């Protein structure tokens, strides 16, 4: 025949051979010429013919066909089908042989449209088949596709749709829950597998564009990536620190080989995640406050966002300018400064939320005062180690320099409450 088999054909073939009572099936098939034609077509395919000839064609179904024949022409379907059969057989017999099939995964055609870039790594299934537990498709070998198109690892095996779940399978896949969400991804041992496959695919897809960037941009991208290397524990600790920094603790940054350690490891390191998220949250909370006063329009959100951006730019420019004018050389990089100046939005959100909840000016002023105090304390403690010279005092002319540095530090620290007050006062009525 030589024509390509679609998934539907294979499924039909499996279904036909699933039943024990082959005679009645064949009789029923005779009534539907279309289906019979498909069935014959699949049967005539050389690979499957070889399979059937070698094994006794029993009515136990295609799961007994376990030989692997390298298919001469069509690389996609039959090896994939054999692999499906093998997989299922392995699951049934609790075989853990890792037969590494170098073939590409068969991308299912209609009626099972492929779901690309779905977050179903290493053991999930595409959305069209919600009734199938995900346990079936997890025992795939690490399909590191070295060839160019790498398909989604969440391959839905159509055969397994016809078989009832058995306890054997679920025992072998203990880490999967029936309906895994994103939170189970970290427990899934095959998460890395799926992630690698998708990463490979994305690299093939977007690799050209990333490599085309000039080297300076790549360097700055990687240095910005440092600031986003956070995790939940860090964020929580940092937020608590911003709101209550008065406990005695060690404020020095940790270094590893002269490079600052990423924020995930060291709580004292600056990051960009908290400033970015709190700036966005501030815009939203400002919208909320305006809404309670019946002054909200969608343009206000955009105006607040742009004013946040602009005031940030102004502040950073003023501070960098001051650094340059006073000729202060410090360990503080500009990127770090941007991060430290972004921490005030947390305080702004706290003050605004307190106003939102209580609608009393007194509470707002108190929270403003407290937030300013704690932020100033936090910044003094953090920046003191970076801007001020070492307390070893090895500089004979150090007095002038350190005076400037103290003034600079004071400037930074004074600017923050000013901004907090200025950016929230127009929202406060009453």
């Amino acid at each position, binding site marked *: 025949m030589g024509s390509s088999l679609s998934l539907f054909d294979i499924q039909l073939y499996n279904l036909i051979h699933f039943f024990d009572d082959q005679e009645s099936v064949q009789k029923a098939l005779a009534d539907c010429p279309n289906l019979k034609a498909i069935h014959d077509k699949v049967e005539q395919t050389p690979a499957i013919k070889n399979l059937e000839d070698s094994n006794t064609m029993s009515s136990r179904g295609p799961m007994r066909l376990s030989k692997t024949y390298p298919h001469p022409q069509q690389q996609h379907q039959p090896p994939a089908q054999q692999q499906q059969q093998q997989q299922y057989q392995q699951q049934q017999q609790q075989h853990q042989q890792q037969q590494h099939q170098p073939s590409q995964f068969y991308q299912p055609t209609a009626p099972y449209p492929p779901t690309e870039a779905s977050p179903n790594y290493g053991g999930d299934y595409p959305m069209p088949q919600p009734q199938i537990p995900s346990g079936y498709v997890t025992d795939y070998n690490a399909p590191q596709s070295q060839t160019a198109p790498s398909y989604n690892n969440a391959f839905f095996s159509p055969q397994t749709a016809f078989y009832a779940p058995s306890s054997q399978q679920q025992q072998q896949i203990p880490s999967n829950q029936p309906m895994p969400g994103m939170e189970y991804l970290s427990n899934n041992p095959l998460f890395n597998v799926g992630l690698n496959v998708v990463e490979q695919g994305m690299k093939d897809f977007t690799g050209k564009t990333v490599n085309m960037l000039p080297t300076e941009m790549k360097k700055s991208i990687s240095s910005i990536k440092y600031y986003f290397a956070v995790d939940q524990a860090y964020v929580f600790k940092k937020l608590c620190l911003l709101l209550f920094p008065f406990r005695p603790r060690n404020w020095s940054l940790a270094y590893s080989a002269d490079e600052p350690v990423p924020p995930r490891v060291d709580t004292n390191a600056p990051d960009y995640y908290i400033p970015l998220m709190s700036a966005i949250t501030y815009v939203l909370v400002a919208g909320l406050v305006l809404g309670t006063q019946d002054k909200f329009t969608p343009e206000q959100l955009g105006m607040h966002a*742009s*004013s946040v951006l602009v005031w940030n730019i102004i502040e950073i420019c003023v501070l960098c300018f001051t650094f340059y*004018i*006073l*000729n202060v050389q410090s360990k503080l990089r500009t990127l770090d400064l941007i991060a430290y100046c972004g921490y005030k939005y947390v305080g702004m959100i706290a003050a605004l939320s307190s106003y939102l909840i209580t609608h009393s000016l007194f509470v707002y002023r108190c929270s403003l005062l407290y937030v300013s105090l704690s932020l100033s304390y936090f910044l003094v403690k953090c920046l003191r180690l970076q801007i001020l010279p070492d307390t070893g005092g090895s*500089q004979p*002319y*150090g007095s002038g320099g350190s005076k400037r540095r103290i003034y600079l530090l004071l400037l930074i620290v004074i600017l923050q409450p000013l901004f907090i007050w200025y950016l929230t006062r127009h929202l406060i009525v009453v």
Partner: protein
Amino acid sequence: MVFTLYSLIEAALLGVNAVAILNEQRFLSKLTGGGGGQQGYPGATGYVDDMQNAGGVKQQLLTLIRSVRTVMRIPLIAFNIIAIIFLILFG
């Protein structure tokens, strides 16, 4: 409070224009007279700190102004033309 990005760009352009049109003869050399004298006496005043601070605030400012003028003379012409066209077209 309504502070858009465009107003920031406008303010920056006007500021750089202001820096560019300072008259060298009448204004800047007068300032330099005061600032240049300090160079000769490194340890005399409290402002000069050899290792860290070779210029003093005034010196730094003057250096900054001079470098801005040198660098931005030509591009400023282009930016101003663009701003003029933009304002004519869009008010």
